[in-house]
């Protein structure tokens, strides 16, 4: 163990959907303020792993600890109470590939919804905090607009502000740029980069290899439900040790070539 305390600790995690075993004995630690990028081909289990971290998906076996809360899964698993689940999730922020903004609420309404109704925050305070979050992602002037009037990049930045408004201990990003037009990817990545600089603990599932290399301090490469390779971001991306990692990366990026950009 390093000197820094780990914020997320995952041990012997398993998950199967019917016949398909998507996570096979996953062990993973993310230190406080650490940024981990989960890479791997589609179907490798990286999104499932991310969803396990806020229990949108319930693992079959293993333990998950985020901050001070530990959940044990397996045969002796106690029935998870909806209330304690909800309390746990309110401390982990998640941003989705398809934004999932609430279309019947304004941008501001989206951001203040959970602070008011989950945390019980006073409306005035919630609005002040929401405006500060929107300011951070550069969308304070859009507060009154409805989500469907925004571009994809703006929607995703609102989704980030919405998650941040709950003041989570960790942020989880699930392929947040995959549904965006190429020219809108940059603004979202910038917002994430800013968060990393602020010291937020983050786990990022992404196909943006150069971004992962820049912003993550560790990279976890997954295939077929296993962690194949894991290490410092630049090391794994620039000089992968495993064949599987090398093959995967070669689709995006010539190994060792630092100037190339991702054109998947």
């Amino acid at each position, binding site marked *: 163990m390093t000197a820094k305390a780990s914020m997320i600790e995952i041990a012997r995690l398993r998950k199967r959907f019917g016949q398909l075993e998507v996570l096979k004995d996953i062990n993973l630690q993310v230190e406080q303020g650490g940024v981990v990028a989960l890479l791997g081909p589609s179907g490798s289990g990286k999104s499932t792993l991310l969803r396990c971290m806020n229990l949108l998906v319930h693992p079959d076996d293993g333990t998950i600890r985020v901050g001070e809360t530990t959940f044990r899964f397996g045969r002796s698993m106690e029935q998870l109470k909806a209330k304690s689940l909800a309390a*746990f999730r309110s401390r982990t922020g998640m941003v989705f590939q398809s934004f999932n903004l609430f279309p019947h609420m304004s941008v501001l309404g989206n951001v203040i919804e959970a602070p008011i109704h989950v945390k019980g925050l006073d409306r005035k305070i919630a609005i002040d905090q929401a405006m500060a979050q929107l300011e951070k992602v550069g969308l304070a002037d859009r507060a009154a607009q409805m989500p469907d009037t925004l571009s994809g990049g703006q929607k995703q930045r609102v989704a980030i502000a*919405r998650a941040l408004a709950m003041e989570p201990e960790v942020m989880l990003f699930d392929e947040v740029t995959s549904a965006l037009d190429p020219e809108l990817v940059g603004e979202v990545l910038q917002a994430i980069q800013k968060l990393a600089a602020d010291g937020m603990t983050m786990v990022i599932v992404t196909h943006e290899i150069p971004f992962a290399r820049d912003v993550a301090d560790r990279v976890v490469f997954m295939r077929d439900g296993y962690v194949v390779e894991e290490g410092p971001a630049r090391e794994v991306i620039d000089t992968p040790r495993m064949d599987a990692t090398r093959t995967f990366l070669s689709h995006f990026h010539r190994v060792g070539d630092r100037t190339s950009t991702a054109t998947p």
Partner: protein
Amino acid sequence: MYEWDFSILWGYRWLFLQGLGVTVAFTAATIAGGLTIGMTAAICLLSRFRILRGIALGFIEIFRCTPVLVQLIWCYYALPMIAGIEMTPITASLLALSCYGGSFYAEIIRGGIVSIDVGQSEAASALGMPPGLAMRRIILPQALRRMLPALMNQSILQFKNTSLVSVLAVPDLVYQGQIAAHDSFRPLETYTAVAVAYFAILFPLTLYVRSRERRLGAAR
């Protein structure tokens, strides 16, 4: 050759008006009751408890697949004999019509709820909203907007279905029409007048529902 004479209707105007009032009040009450029952049944249908799903399904199918007329008669005459529950004709009518309407509302509401993208409830849970709160604040407001045309359609049917309460001698518009018909020996004129009254109320409503449906289609 039959000589039409609508002038006789004027003498029964207060009777008709009273009947219309009862019909409208019955419609309003059974829509409210039906929506309450329908919402409850829909939530039960979506429950993770098999027993609740079974009960809701049984209830819905019994009321959806039998004639309202029989349900009315059954509520008023059979319930007292079987269960010892005595009801006035009005209570029995309200109960039967609310259950009948509720069984249809339930299917509409259930369909509306499951039509909302699963990402919405995921986003709500990820923000720490418990299931009930997510349903109330996130899913239902979107679902209700989407199912409004179907709910209004069903409510229009409900308006017409109230005409059946006349079999239990509840003095609605049709019942008063019957009285006027027997009294005046002019059934064709009185029933025509009754039909015109129903049409005058429902036709604007159907137009409204249609325009609403169009707008909803355009918004998507």
